C-alpha cells in the first residue's frame, strides 16, 4: 500500500532491531544503550501516534505499519521505556488505536485481546512478577487499586535505597558492609528513565551527594548527564547543594550549564541588566561559583566565549553581571566557610585582585576616585613591567579587569563628575579599550583621550550647547577606523552628555547622529543599561540625568 506522503517515514526496522536487542534490558550494556536512545524513541512514538490516530481501524493501521504489533509489544515489556518521561502515555495511546469497538475479522479480534493483555500488564498489579497475583487479591480486598499499591511500593523502595546508601556512606571504610561500587553504578543507571518521576527525588539527591571510597566517579555518566539535562530544562528541581555536587563531580555538566546560560542570555533581548541578573541567578551558577573550582571553570568558559565572539560588549556585560552576583553570594556566605580570594584568582597579583573585588557601595563615594587611581597605578606597574608582559599575561590581566567592569564605568563617570587627577583614570580606560599596545599605540590613545577630555571639560558648564560645539569629539568617533579609540571616545562623550548641564539638551540628537553613522549603537546601549543598573542599585541624585537615561534607552531599544 502506498504511504501517505504527508506521513514522515517512520523507521520501524531500526527501532524493532533495537527493541529485540534490548529485550527486557537486563544487561548493563543494553541498559546503557536504552538510556541513550530514550529521548529519540519517545519522539518516534509520538510521530507514530500522530501517523495512526486518524487511520480508520486497526486493519488499516496494521496494513500500513505491519511491524507495529511486534514493536509495541516488545516495548511494553521494557521497564526503561515504560518508565521514561511520557513514553508510557504515548505508547498506551498507540495501543488504543489498535483496539476496535466492532472487530470485523480474526486479526481485529486478536488485536483486541492483545491490547487488553498489554494494558493489564502495564497497569494492574499482576503478571510483571509472578508473586503479584496474591498482592492483587489482597489490595483489592482492602478496597485499594494497583495505583495505591505502586505509589507505596515505589516510595518504600526509594526510602530503603536511600537508607542503604546513607548507612553505607556513614559506615565509611568498613569494606565488608559497604555496597559495591558496581551496585551504586547500577542504581544510578536504572534511575535514568525515572529522573522526572517526583517520587524519586530523595534517591537522586542521595546519589548525587554520594561518594564512594575511591576517587573514580561511581555514578554512571548517563545518569549525571540526564539529571543535568532535566535540571536545565526545569523538569526537576533539586536543592542547590545537590546541583553544586553534580557540577563539582561532573565537568561536562558544568560546561553544559554555563553554555546553556549563555545561549539563554543571547536568545533574549537585553532590556535591562535586572533581567540579565535574574536569568543568571536563576541558573544557580553564581551561587555554585562559591566553590573555587566551579568559579574558575565557569570563568574560563566565559573567557573563551569572549574570545570567540571577538570581545563583544554584550558578552562583557554578561561576565560583569555574573562577577557582581558571584561577589554578592560570597559576601552573604558564612565567614567560616569562605575560601580565600586566592583560591578564585590564583595566578593574579593579589593586591590588584583585592582592589577590584571591593564593591563600590562598600566605599564612600568620595573615595571612589582615589580607589580608581590605586587600581590604575597597580595595573600600570604590572603592565609596564617588561618581565611579565607576554601577550598571554597581558590578556589575563585585561580579562581580570574586564570582569570587574563596574570600576571602569565608575572611573569614566568620575572624570566628568568629580575633581580628579585625569591622567591615571585616562590611562586605565585606555588600557581597557586598547590593551595590546602595538607600536606604543596606548600612549597615543591616552594623548588623544586627553585632548577630547579637556575639550569636553571646557564645554562642561556651558548651558547652551549645540551639536556643532561637540564636532571635534564626534568626529573622533565617526571619523576613525580604530574601534578601540572609537569606543573609548564614545564612552567619554556619552558620560559628558549624561552628566553635563548643557549636554542634556543635545544628547538625543548627538547619540542619534553617532549611531547613524557608525555601528556603535550596541555599545552605547550596553553602556546605558549598565549605567541604569548601577543607578537603580546605588541611587543617582540627579533626577534629570535619570530621566534622560531612560529616554535615551527607549529610543535605542527600538534601534538595537
Amino acid at each position, binding site marked *: 500500500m502506498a504511504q501517505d506522503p504527508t506521513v514522515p517515514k517512520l523507521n520501524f526496522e531500526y527501532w524493532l532491531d533495537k527493541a529485540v536487542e534490548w529485550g527486557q534490558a537486563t544487561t548493563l550494556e543494553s541498559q546503557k544503550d536504552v538510556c541513550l536512545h530514550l529521548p529519540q524513541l519517545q519522539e518516534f512514538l509520538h510521530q507514530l501516534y500522530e501517523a495512526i490516530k486518524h487511520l480508520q481501524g486497526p486493519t488499516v493501521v496494521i496494513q500500513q505499519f505491519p511491524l507495529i504489533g511486534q514493536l509495541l509489544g516488545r516495548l511494553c515489556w521494557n521497564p526503561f521505556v515504560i518508565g521514561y518521561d511520557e513514553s508510557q502515555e504515548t505508547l498506551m495511546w498507540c495501543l488504543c488505536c489498535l483496539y476496535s469497538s466492532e472487530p470485523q475479522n480474526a486479526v481485529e479480534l486478536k488485536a483486541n485481546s492483545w491490547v*487488553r493483555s498489554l494494558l493489564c500488564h502495564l497497569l494492574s498489579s499482576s503478571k510483571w512478577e509472578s508473586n503479584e497475583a*496474591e498482592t492483587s487479591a489482597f489490595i483489592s480486598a482492602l478496597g485499594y487499586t494497583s495505583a495505591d499499591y505502586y505509589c507505596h511500593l515505589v516510595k518504600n523502595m526509594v526510602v530503603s535505597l536511600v537508607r542503604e546508601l546513607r548507612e553505607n556512606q556513614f559506615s565509611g571504610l568498613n569494606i565488608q558492609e559497604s555496597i559495591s561500587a558496581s551496585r551504586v553504578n547500577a542504581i544510578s543507571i536504572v534511575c535514568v528513565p525515572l529522573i522526572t518521576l517526583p517520587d524519586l527525588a530523595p534517591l537522586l539527591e542521595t546519589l548525587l551527594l554520594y561518594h564512594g571510597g575511591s576517587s573514580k566517579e561511581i555514578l554512571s555518566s548517563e545518569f549525571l548527564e540526564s539529571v543535568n539535562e532535566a535540571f536545565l530544562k526545569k523538569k526537576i528541581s533539586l536543592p542547590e547543594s545537590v546541583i553544586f555536587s553534580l557540577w563539582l563531580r561532573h565537568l561536562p555538566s558544568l560546561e553544559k550549564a554555563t553554555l546553556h546560560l549563555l545561549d539563554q542570555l543571547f536568545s533574549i533581548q537585553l532590556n535591562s541588566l535586572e533581567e540579565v541578573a535574574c536569568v543568571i541567578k536563576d541558573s544557580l551558577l553564581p551561587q555554585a561559583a562559591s566553590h573555587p573550582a566551579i568559579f574558575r571553570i565557569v570563568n574560563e568558559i566565559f573567557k573563551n566565549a569572549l574570545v570567540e565572539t571577538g570581545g563583544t560588549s554584550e558578552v562583557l556585560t554578561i561576565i560583569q553581571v555574573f562577577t557582581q552576583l558571584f561577589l554578592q553570594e560570597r559576601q552573604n556566605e558564612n565567614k567560616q566557610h569562605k575560601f580565600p580570594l586566592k583560591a578564585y584568582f590564583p595566578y593574579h597579583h593579589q593586591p590588584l585582585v583585592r582592589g577590584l573585588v571591593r564593591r563600590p557601595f562598600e566605599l564612600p563615594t568620595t573615595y571612589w576616585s582615589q580607589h580608581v587611581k590605586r587600581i590604575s597605578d597597580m595595573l600600570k606597574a604590572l603592565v609596564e613591567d617588561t618581565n611579565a608582559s607576554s601577550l598571554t599575561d597581558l590578556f589575563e590581566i585585561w580579562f581580570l579587569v574586564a570582569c570587574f567592569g563596574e570600576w571602569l564605568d565608575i572611573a569614566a563617570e568620575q572624570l566628568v563628575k568629580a575633581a580628579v587627577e585625569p591622567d591615571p583614570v585616562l590611562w586605565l580606560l585606555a588600557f581597557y579599550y586598547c590593551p595590546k599596545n602595538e607600536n606604543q599605540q596606548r600612549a597615543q590613545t591616552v594623548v588623544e583621550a586627553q585632548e577630547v577630555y579637556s575639550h569636553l571639560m571646557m564645554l562642561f558648564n556651558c548651558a547652551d550647547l549645540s551639536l556643532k560645539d561637540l564636532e571635534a569629539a564626534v568626529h573622533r568617533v565617526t571619523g576613525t577606523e580604530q574601534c578601540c579609540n572609537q569606543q573609548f571616545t564614545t564612552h567619554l562623550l556619552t558620560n559628558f552628555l549624561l552628566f553635563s548641564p548643557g549636554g542634556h539638551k543635545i544628547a538625543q540628537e548627538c547619540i542619534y547622529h553617532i549611531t547613524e553613522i557608525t555601528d556603535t549603537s550596541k555599545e552605547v546601549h550596553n553602556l546605558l543599561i549598565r549605567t541604569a543598573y548601577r543607578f537603580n542599585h546605588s541611587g543617582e541624585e540627579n533626577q534629570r540625568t535619570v530621566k534622560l537615561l531612560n529616554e535615551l534607552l527607549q529610543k535605542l531599544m527600538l534601534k538595537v
Partner: protein
Amino acid sequence: MDAVLRQVEQLPALLAVSRSAQVRHWDCLTLDRALEWARYFQHLHHRFRARPQLREALGRRLRRSQPLPVLGFPALGRCPQLLGLALLENRALPPAACRCLLRSLLQPPAGGSGRDPGGLPLLARRKAAACLLASGPGPQGQLQAEARLLLGRLREEGQGAEAQLLREEGQETAGQPRWLRGALEQLPQPRACGVVAAALALLAQGCDTEQTGDADRAASSSQGGYQAGAAGDGCAAGFLLSWLLGNQERFSAFCLCLPSSQLAFLAGHYSQLSRSYLDLLTSWGSRLVYDPLQGRWVKSCLDKAELSWEELRERFICLCQGPALLREQTQAALELLRTRDGDFKVRGLSVWTDLLMEVGY
C-alpha cells in the same frame, strides 16, 4: 442527606457488578453511566472531605454494606480509578464498551489541556519504576507497601470504631474488624505473617505518619488533631494483635516463619505479644529432650512444626539483647522454669538451665 446516603449505598454493588460477568451486557451508554456515577462519587468526596460528621456517616454506610472489599469514605475519592481498573481487567466487557472505556481512561484531551498528572500513565510509570528499582535484596519493599495499605484501612476503621465506641454489630470477637481475616486470607500464610509483622513494626517505629493509605488522612488528622491519629494507631495495633493472638495455630506459624530479631523487636514493643511469645517458646522448649549419646537437646517429634535447640537458643539470645524490660522478663521466666525443674546448675539436665547459660547467666 438521606438521598445521598442511599446513593452511596449503591457503590459496593456498582463495584461488584464491574468485577462480574454481568458487564457482558454493557454497551457504551451503560459504561458512560457507570463512569458518570464514579465521577459523582468522587465529587461527593471532594464536597464532604472537610466535614467530619458527614464523612463519618458516609463511611459507616459504606462499611456496613458488605464484608469485602473494605470500603470507607476515601473510596469515594478513588472511585473512577477503582471502577476503571476493575473494568479494564474484566474480560467480559464487550469491545464497544471497552473502546469507550479506553477512550475515557487514556485518550489525550482534545485541547491538549486538562491532562491528569495522577492518572494511568503515572501508574504505568510507577509500576515500571518498581520493577527497575527492585534489583536490590528481597521482597521487603512489597511487604512494607502492603503493610502501609493495610494500616491505612485499619486506622480508618479505628477512627470509625472510636466514633461508634464499638457499639454496633459487625465487630468480631475482641474488637477485630470482621474483614481483617478475610483480607489477610488472600495472602499465603507466611506472606500474611510478614505483612502483619511489617505493619506492627511500622506502628512501633511511629514512622508511618508521612505515608499512609489515603491522602485524606492528612486532612482528617489535621482536624482530629494529633491525638486522634495516635489513637487510630493504637486501635490498628490492637486489631492486628487480636488477629494474631486470637488463634494459637496462627500465632505459632507467625513465630516460626519470622526471624528472631524481628520477633524480639516486636516483643520489645508489644507486651501482649511478648507474653504469648514467651509462653510459646516455653512450650516448644519443654518438648525438647536431651540425647545423652549426641550430648545435645533434640526434638522429641521430628516432623512437628517446632523449633530445634539452635533455633530456640537464638530466639532467647535475641530477646536478651532487647530493651531492659524485655531482658528482665525473659530472664525471670527462664529462672522460674529452672527452679521448677529443680534448680540444677549443670548442663544436660534442664533445657532452661542450659538456655540461661547460653544467654550469659
